[in-house]
């Protein structure tokens, strides 16, 4: 395959204390594409994203962004290198206003990209434009989810790591988030989307990887995965 791999994860092991969580995880993400990282609860999806973002630093292995190994670097260095991380539990700054939350995330991209500003974020997320002064802690779960995504986009990342953006949200909000991810994809943002729900990923991502007990057990296109009942039954409990 002659492809443009922007993010390559190789042989990544992660430990929490003495327990090993990830076993030689490997992932390739191509520029401008969306990879769905699927697996059950506790399979290691979140830890994989945290390992890439430097929040759960890998003990061994490499995390290359555009050829540069970032494994073991501090999270802020990784973020400035162009990896934007959106945590699953939203983690807005609850006492800050929506606009202050966004401003804390504001920076240029590693090549000086500056597409995302307050103006473009409010254009893409009209719901946030209507509540700039609201304390983030007072927003609904769906609004907070939008805010965390927008806050990370304010940093103009080259690769966006989204950890279960649909989790715990009402179906209509899940639809809106799916629509948002499609919009970002059209804009050429590279996305790694950790999800339990394959159906949520179907119209959103091109590629899929399945993780189970800390091992990547399957890699294909999302359509390929959907057609492979043995894998979906065994690892995704659909």
């Amino acid at each position: 395959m002659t492809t443009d791999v922007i993010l390559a994860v190789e042989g990544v092991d992660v430990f929490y204390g003495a327990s090993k969580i990830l076993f030689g995880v490997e992932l390739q993400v191509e520029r401008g594409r969306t990879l769905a990282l699927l697996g059950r609860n506790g399979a290691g999806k979140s830890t994989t994203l945290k390992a890439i973002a430097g929040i759960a630093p890998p003990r061994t292995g490499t995390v290359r962004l555009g050829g540069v190994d970032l494994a073991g670097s501090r999270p802020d260095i990784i973020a400035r290198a162009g990896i934007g991380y959106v945590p699953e539990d939203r983690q807005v700054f609850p006492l800050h206003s929506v606009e202050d939350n966004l401003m804390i995330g504001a920076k240029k991209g590693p090549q000086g990209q500056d597409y995302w500003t307050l103006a473009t974020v409010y254009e893409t997320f009209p719901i946030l434009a209507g509540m700039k002064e609201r304390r983030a802690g007072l927003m609904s779960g769906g609004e907070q989810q939008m805010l965390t995504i927008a806050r990370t986009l304010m940093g103009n990342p080259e690769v966006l790591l989204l950890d279960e953006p649909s989790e715990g949200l009402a179906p209509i909000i899940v639809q809106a988030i799916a629509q948002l991810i499609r919009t970002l994809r059209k804009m050429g943002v590279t996305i790694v989307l950790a999800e339990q729900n394959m159906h949520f990923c179907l119209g959103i991502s091109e590629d899929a990887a399945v993780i189970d007990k800390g091992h990547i057990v399957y890699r294909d296109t999302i359509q390929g995965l959907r057609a492979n009942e043995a894998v979906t039954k065994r690892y995704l409990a659909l």
Partner: protein
Amino acid sequence: MLEIDALAACLSSPACLVNQTTTGLIIGMLLFLVASGVTLIFGVLHVINFAHGSFYMLGAYFAYTAYITTGNYFVAAAAGALGAAICGIVFERLIISRVYGQNVLMQLLVCYAFILIVDDLVKIIWGAEYLSMGIPAEFRLPPYRIAGGFVPPFYLFMVAMAVIIGLGSLWIVTRTRFGKIVRAAAHNASMVSALGIRVQLYFAALFGLGCALAGVAGALAAPVRSLTPGMGLGILVESFIVTVIGGMGSIPGAFLAAIILGLTRSIGSVGFPLFVDGAMFMIMALVLIFRPTGLLGQGTLR
């Protein structure tokens, strides 16, 4: 014990009231500056800087030397603040950051060791004897007479400086990008870091800001108090009382509590001279019983 006659005489004399209020205010303002540093650092870093008094002392000594050298008190005050800030940043990076999140006893021990070392360094550099700076040349003016009381111009300057600096720190913490980032990091450092911000630098800068407040207090105190190694301890204890009464993490609370304590001290020195310290601790105990978070405190910096 209670000198009711003296107290009544003072309270009914405008001149005495003016004098005691002014004295109480300047005691309060010094306490406020030191305590707002303690409260800022605690609010963001969740660490109690037991060594804060050392930065007050360093500020006083730096200001003393700068004043002797330049003859300009404003340069001296800036030197006190800046010198204390730099020492604070070095202390934060090299020492106290290693015990963040550890038990308080460990932090206390580390700070106490630092206090002893700095006191000895001050003895080596400036000597163990008392030093006196005197009222700076800029302020050697006749006192203002208000209702029969005397108010030295330098006292007015101290109060004005403390209010301006207090408002300035409040503005930095609540309105600037630096303050917003630091408050967000107080709440969730790892998320702020994941947004590409080098949180450790912000923490060090905030610690430096807190120490600059102590340093400027030392510089303001230098003309009216004598300088001695160990001068940081007394103000440290009192500024903790202020912090507890005002509410940990609250700058306005520190302001209110500092004025209460300053006035208790100055009026008390007339009315109950033997029980001034006791009265301060009693106020603290009462606040802790009836309002454990302090007068304006919410537990963390907001």
